[in-house]
Structures are given as C-alpha cells and as structure tokens.
C-alpha cells in the first residue's frame, strides 16, 4: 500500500466508524514515515466530511458517533508522535460538561472533532465545577474553555464559569465556548460566553475563529 492509499484508507475508516481499523491505519501511516501533521490534516478533512454528512442528513447520530470514536482512536496514535516531533497544535481547549450534568455523548463528539481538527483537547469529562475550569486554565493556559449543558436545570451553571474566570482575574486570557442540548445561540450574552456551537461541526469552526481572536489579542 502506498502512503496515499493508506491515508485514503484511514479517512475511509473514520467515515465508516471503524474504530480499531482507524487506530491500526494511523499507526501504519506513521510507520510509513508520513508526518504526524499530514495525518492530522487527513483526519481534519475527515472531521469536516463527517460534519457535512451529518448536516446534510446523509449521516445520523450513530454514524457521527462511530466516526468520532474512530477519529479519537486515530488521533490518540498521532498525538504522541506530534508532540515528540515538536509539531504545533491549532489551539488548546479545556472542555467539560457543567456541574450536575453527566451527559457526555455530544461532548465526546466535539472532543473527537476538535482533536481531529488539530486542537489539543483536555477533556475534564462530566459534572465539572466552575472552580476546576479555573484551575485548569491556570495550569494549562488554553486558548478556549468549552462547556456544555444538556438540561435546562444545569444550563444555569454556564454563567458561573465565566464569573469564576473573571473573579480569578483570568477571563481575558481565554475564550469561552458553549454548547449542548439545553443551550442556544441567544444564551451567549447571558452566560458571558464568546461563542456557541450548535453542533460539533460548528463548534470546530467557531473554535478556529476564537483561537484567531485570542491570539491576535495576545499579540
């Protein structure tokens, strides 16, 4: 198999949701001396394709979820090699579901899509207190804090994260992205957020813009 054929097969494995195969193929292409950045570019294209197919109605959640899991499995093979080679990430994201909320399917898809798109993602999992987001921002200095809520009861927690960052004096150092089933675009202002992703594909494109904004602000 040529490098190009292997990369095509990797992309196809992600789109088919073949988790084990995607991980194997990622290892194979790295063994063929394809640069980790090149592999991530292919995965990023696959992430965009997954998002497009979902938005167009060709894919439903099972296909998107399986694709995201396959993407995560492949990214897990690529990231250590990328780190070793000193390659750059598109940005760093700290992500979690708000306190009191344990829904994680949507967030898992967003994590996979962001990782596939070249972001370094620190997943704090579910039921995350605002104070933990603050601690992780101090520790990891990410470009973005992303929080999701899936219940109207727990969406009330979203403003707490922005407030906690403000009280810690680090709100201006990071962008705040929100999403989830109980969250809407209209809530950007009331939650003190900088952006909203209606679905995983939009979360990735908004994240790209937010990274540009925070980096130009920093420079």
């Amino acid at each position, binding site marked *: 198999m040529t490098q190009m054929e292997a990369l095509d097969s990797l992309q196809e494995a992600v789109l088919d949701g073949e988790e084990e195969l995607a991980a194997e193929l990622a290892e194979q292409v790295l063994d063929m001396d394809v640069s980790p950045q090149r592999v991530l570019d292919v995965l990023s294209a696959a992430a965009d394709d997954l998002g497009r197919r*979902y938005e167009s109605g060709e894919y439903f*959640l099972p296909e998107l979820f399986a694709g995201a899991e396959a993407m995560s499995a492949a990214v897990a093979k690529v990231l250590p090699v990328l780190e070793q080679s000193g390659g750059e990430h598109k940005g760093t994201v700290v992500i979690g579901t708000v306190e009191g909320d344990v829904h994680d399917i949507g967030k898992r898809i967003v994590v996979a899509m962001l990782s596939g798109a070249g972001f370094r993602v620190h997943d704090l999992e579910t039921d995350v207190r605002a104070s933990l987001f603050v601690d992780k921002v101090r520790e990891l200095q990410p470009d973005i804090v992303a929080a999701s809520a899936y219940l109207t*009861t727990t969406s009330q927690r979203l403003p707490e994260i922005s407030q906690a960052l403000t009280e810690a004096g680090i709100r201006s150092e990071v962008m705040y992205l929100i999403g989830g089933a109980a969250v809407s675009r209209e809530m950007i202002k009331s939650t003190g957020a900088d952006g909203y992703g209606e679905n995983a594909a939009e979360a990735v494109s908004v994240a790209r813009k937010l990274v540009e904004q925070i980096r130009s602000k920093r420079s």
Partner: protein
Amino acid sequence: MIAHAELRNRIEDLVGRYERQVAQQEMSPLERAFKTWSFQEPDRLLGSFAVFSPLCLDIQEITTREYYTDPWAFYYIQALAVVEWGNETPLMYGDPYHVEIEAMGGEVKYPEHSIPHLGEPLLKEPGDLSSLKIPDPERDGRMPVLLEQSRMHHRYLGSMVFAPVSCCGPFSMAVGLRGYKNILKDIRKDPSFVHELLDFCCEVVKVYGGALRDTHNASPTMQEAWSCLPNVSPKVFHEFCLPYITRCVEALRNPTTGFAGTVFHGYGISLAPDWRSFLRTVCATGLSAIPLMEEDVHGLRGYGQMDVAEYKKICASQGVVVMSFLHTDTIIAGPPERIRQLVHDWFRAAGAGGGYTASTTWPVGALVEHMQAFIDAFRECRYPVEG
C-alpha cells in the same frame, strides 16, 4: 423539607380550591381531555406543561432530590402546577428513563438540585443479560413510589384532570441498560444480542407499564427519545425500534378506554428522508398520541421543517392525537407576544376537529411572564376554530 402531614394538608387545600375552580368552568380539564382524545371539539384547547423540578415554580422548600424520591413532595408540586398555574395534564413522572433500570439494580444518582441520572451501564457485557430479572413493580427501586404518585392522583385530582403515567420504551431501556456507545457497537457487531435484549425490555414494559395503567385506567406514555432521529438512523429504527414499540403499544392497550399506549416519539421526524411516510409508519404502530416538536416545525437546532396542518392531517387520518410542544428556547427567549402568537397560529392550523393539544416544558429560570403567556394563550384558543 416539608413534613408529610403538612404536604397532605396543602394538597387537600389545593383539591378544595380546584373543585371550586372547576365548578365554574364550562367543562372540566378531564372532560376536555377526553373529548380532545376522542377527536371531538371541546370548549377550548387543552394545554399543559411539564414541571421537572420544584425550581420551575420557584419552590425552594423542596429539593429536586426530594421531588424525585418522595411521592408526597412530587404530587404537591404537580397539584400546585394544576391549581395555581392551570396545568391541564400534570405528569405523574419526572425521569422515566431511569426507573426500570434502577429497579433492575442499576445505579441512579440523585443530585440535590438537578434531575437524577444513571451511573455506569448495568450490562457491562452482553452475557450479563442472563442475570437480569423482570422487576416487581410493587417492590423494586422507585417503582412503588411512581405507582403511589399515580394512586394519589386518583384519590385527589383524578376526577377533574387527566394525568398520564409513563414508562420507558423498549429501545430507550436497552440504551439505558447497555449505554449508547455500546448499543451502537452491538448493533454493528452483535445484532442478535440486541434483539434478545429488546425482547427482554418488552417484557419489562409490559409488566411495569401494565401496573401503571391499572392504577387509574390510563395507558402509559412510553418514553422513546433514544429511538428518535437523529439518535438512530431510519435503518436502525426500522429493525431495532419499530417492531418492539409496536408490540408494546398494543400490549398496553387499556381494555376500559380502548386507548393504546402513547409513545413520546416525535422529534426528528423532520429529519427522515420522507417525513410524511416516516410519520405514517410511526402512527401505524397503533399509538394513541404523538408529539409535534417545535424544532421539527421551525427547523431549530439543525432539524428540518414540517407543516403543522399537514402533520395533523396525517395523524388524524390514522386516529392519532397530536400533542404540540413549544421548545424551551422559545419559552426562555420570549417575548410573550411571540409565544402567544405561536400557540394561536398552530391552533388555527391544527386544532379543528379536536385531536390536538398544546404543551411545553417549564424551563428553570424562564421568566414567569413567558410561561404565563403560554398559559393565557391556550386558554384563549376556543372552539370552533376561527379561520
């Protein structure tokens, strides 16, 4: 926390007030519901809203945890919603996706101020299915609590207002037992296990749903969010959801009223490649009512768009009542005029001939005037429907 004796006093006081209120109405909400569900035109539109936490009504003296575990606390809040806010279909359930799982030994966590949630999936491996037992509704987990709530309704407000009971539908129960990620893998790698699991879930639905139905002659609403698009594809729906839902709907038919089980399976119909055909297929399961979600009408959150009048026409032709639902985003965002307008517009499009209700969920933190606009609006929608 409020003592049971005090809750009992408050409930009895509410019942007395409601009897006086209903006596002054043209028709009781129960009569309104019966006419609506029989495709006759009542005096006006039947309206309801779901209350999933005491915080919705700004009640601070009962925690959400108490609400979900104490039948007195739960029923008091539902009675308040009926008597003080005019809810015409109080729900005798709050977290219908957890009750059966917990009764079979699954872990459910109860946060103080949020809705309960499931712990790790009970079925770690397909082989674990053989150790599961059909729960006893009078003994296991919170099933006795849910049965008691329903019996309380029968004692207190049941002669004046209809209150649906609810159980988890077979596919959603399978997801709860196995976990979404695992069930998707099982569908790909071990479909025969998924069918075996769904057979088991159907038996649980029949036993628990039957016990709920018999508390006050009402067929349960089967909650089936996991079997809705886009959570499953149409292909998965047809093989793994539809046959089992159909089986349960018929099994829960009420011999007294003739109504079959209702299935809370509405959202996502707009995402089907041919939504009209998909809707006809869902209606053909024999269910008595189906939701029409605002996201499917206005294309919210990536959903498609369907015509309200056409949706009603298809459902009515198969004898299925349409329960329209305004999205919580709409209730949160307002303004009151828009909420009122939507209720009126949809009533004009789909209200004629009965078989149509207006609903929403009361979102925690929503402005009271937004909810009041919804309540006022359904009360203003009188039959016959004006052009």
